[in-house]
């Protein structure tokens, strides 16, 4: 069982994708955070971080949405999201607000206390065992933004190692991009799918039951193609694995 920790107030950022498409992932995130001793609050004014517009070149629109994000979360002690990509976006706010140094400074301060779920648990709380049990062979997908912009590599593995019944299978293509890339996935669908298939060619041969990651967007892409290819491998978010008992 997890060691009880001094309670920590956490503002949950569900992410727009989590809110609208994967509420189960967000529920699991709440469960996991509470088991780790956090008091979780959800501010219903929250919407999106602005990344979709930002990555598409529409920075004016991204700024409007990012400003709203700042207003909602700025006063929180710690913000936690079940996504590496959305948290990485926070670290891009200074670039987005380069012409408004005061906003950029506020954004930098907020980025400093915004965390992706697994790194919050391991690095901030020092929690590695959440008392989870999950009987399955799990392949891990290192989602790009978490991996390369936030340096999240060991944290999910540390957490998975403590899950009873779980066997982690390291894939050769674990660090290969799934090909999602936001609007990239629909602007260049053939290229996106070629990247995806490169990864899934290994996944579908691998001795795994579940393919897991820290990002809903990657999982949506991976799942969509696995289903189309008639694979038996399921996709799951890390939070769902960690919430299992």
């Amino acid at each position, binding site marked *: 069982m997890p060691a009880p920790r001094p309670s920590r107030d956490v503002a949950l950022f569900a992410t727009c994708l989590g809110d*609208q498409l994967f509420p189960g992932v967000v529920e699991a995130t709440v469960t996991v955070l509470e088991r780790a001793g956090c008091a979780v609050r959800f501010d219903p004014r929250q919407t999106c971080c602005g990344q979709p517009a*930002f*990555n598409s*070149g529409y920075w004016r*629109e991204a700024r409007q949405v990012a400003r709203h994000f700042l207003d909602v979360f700025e006063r929180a002690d710690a913000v936690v999201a079940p996504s590496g990509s959305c948290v990485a976006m926070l670290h891009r706010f200074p670039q987005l607000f380069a012409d408004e140094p005061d906003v950029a400074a506020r954004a930098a301060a907020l980025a400093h206390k915004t965390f992706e779920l697994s790194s919050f648990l391991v690095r901030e709380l020092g929690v590695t065992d959440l008392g989870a049990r999950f009987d399955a062979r799990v392949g891990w997908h290192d989602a790009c933004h978490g991996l390369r912009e936030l340096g999240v590599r060991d944290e999910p593995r540390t957490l998975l190692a403590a899950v009873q019944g779980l066997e982690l299978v390291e894939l050769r293509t674990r660090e290969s*991009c799934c090909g999602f890339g936001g609007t*990239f996935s629909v602007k260049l*669908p053939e290229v996106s799918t070629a990247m995806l298939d490169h990864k899934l060619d290994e996944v579908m041969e691998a001795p795994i039951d579940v393919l897991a990651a820290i990002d809903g967007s990657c999982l949506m892409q991976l799942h969509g193609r696995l289903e189309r290819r008639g694979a038996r491998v399921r996709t799951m978010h890390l939070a769902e694995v960690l919430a299992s008992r």
Partner: protein
Amino acid sequence: MSGHSHRTPDGFAAQAREALGDRTLTQAMRRVTDLFAERRAAALETVPDWQELRQQARAIKLHTLARLDHYLAQFAGAAAKNGAIVHWAEDAAAACRIVGELAQVHRATRLVKSKSMATEEIHLNAALAAAGTEPVETDLGEWIIQLAGEMPSHIIVPAIHKTRQQISELFVDKLGVAPSDEPTVLAAEARERLRQHFAEADMGISGVNFGVAETGTILVLENEGNARMTTTLPKVHVAVMGIEKVIPRFADLEVFLRLLPRSGTGQHLTSYQSLLTGPDVGVPGRAGQGPRELHLVLLDNGRANIAVDETMRETLACIRCGACLNACPVYQSVGGHAYGAVYPGPIGAILTPQLQGMHQAAALPFASSLCGACKDVCPVQIDIPSLLLELRKRAVEGEAPGAAPAKRAAFEALTWKLWAWFVRSPGRYRFAAAMARLGDKLPLVKRLLPPMRAWASSRALPRLAKRPFRAGHKDGGS
């Protein structure tokens, strides 16, 4: 003379589809990128101070680029003092004209050339061919490409998209030799043919990997020996050098030599580096062994504008190692031709729009999933993802304040405006989500919306949850 010149940077989507339909190409791309990535990883293990080296190289480059006027002038002065003749070319046309005139003045009709990105960028071969003096490419891969009338698909191994059988057929067809698909036999054939060209050449054209400001030395790096031949045997050597190749100190070469081959091919060093400090004219009683004349063509062609752009300047720190190509999942999938330009892959996606202008290449900054693998491997730590994002913004908003955007997509712009209007207000966001839930029940909507159709062409569409997460969490508040 290059075939497939119909390819353009803005044609990326169609060219990528074409590439994906070519199994020989995609398999070759996967092979070369896997192999080089593997070798690079192994080569790095032998360098414990790799990260410090990268930081050093980056710091040297960023300093030099911020004061390029100073270092370039110093370099040109030193080179001239060594006896090199320095030419300045504002753009591609000027550079081609200078080289063309040099060929004319020296009555050079037989030209040999070693591999160089700068000369490909200015389409020097085509310009010289128009004057009847097309140089013979002497790098094996480039020579194959030239014989075939094609474009390179990789900046280190230009003919990687061709199989040995295809090369054999090409040799049978163009050289009239007996068929053989043994690489050693093919290479031996090339050696013999190209020896002849070297022996007869009046002028050799090369690129430059580094130019040292304090000494005026140029360094040319290679594996085959063709660059040594090109810069040794003809009477006249013309080196075309992008102005961003200058580094301040001779001793800095060590840092770059430790980084470049390891990053590109995973070699600890390529077979040859030639460091030329002026023409090798010899001294009285002791003849020189190289060309009597060394001409240096300093090429701007858009670089100066990048150098004074604070945000984009680091683009010029690139040492053309090719590591970002090998690491890029887009490049791995589609190869170099899809980019429709001389510089492919991640570096091409940021360089081409800046060299050719956004109005011709706005598609390239979008040809990336922003996975960041390029930044991780770049020996000079160029933050390619950030530069791609900046270029996307410029494509959408115009390159300078008030300038017309290169990317004219009124419908798309309206969509994002609407999106932001809905998403920046919780009430409107909820409303939009509710509407979307209604839409989700109508299969027709999905079939009509282009992004949905694009997604569904290869992947099952995700469903909106029956109830969003927030519906169960009305209680919260901060």
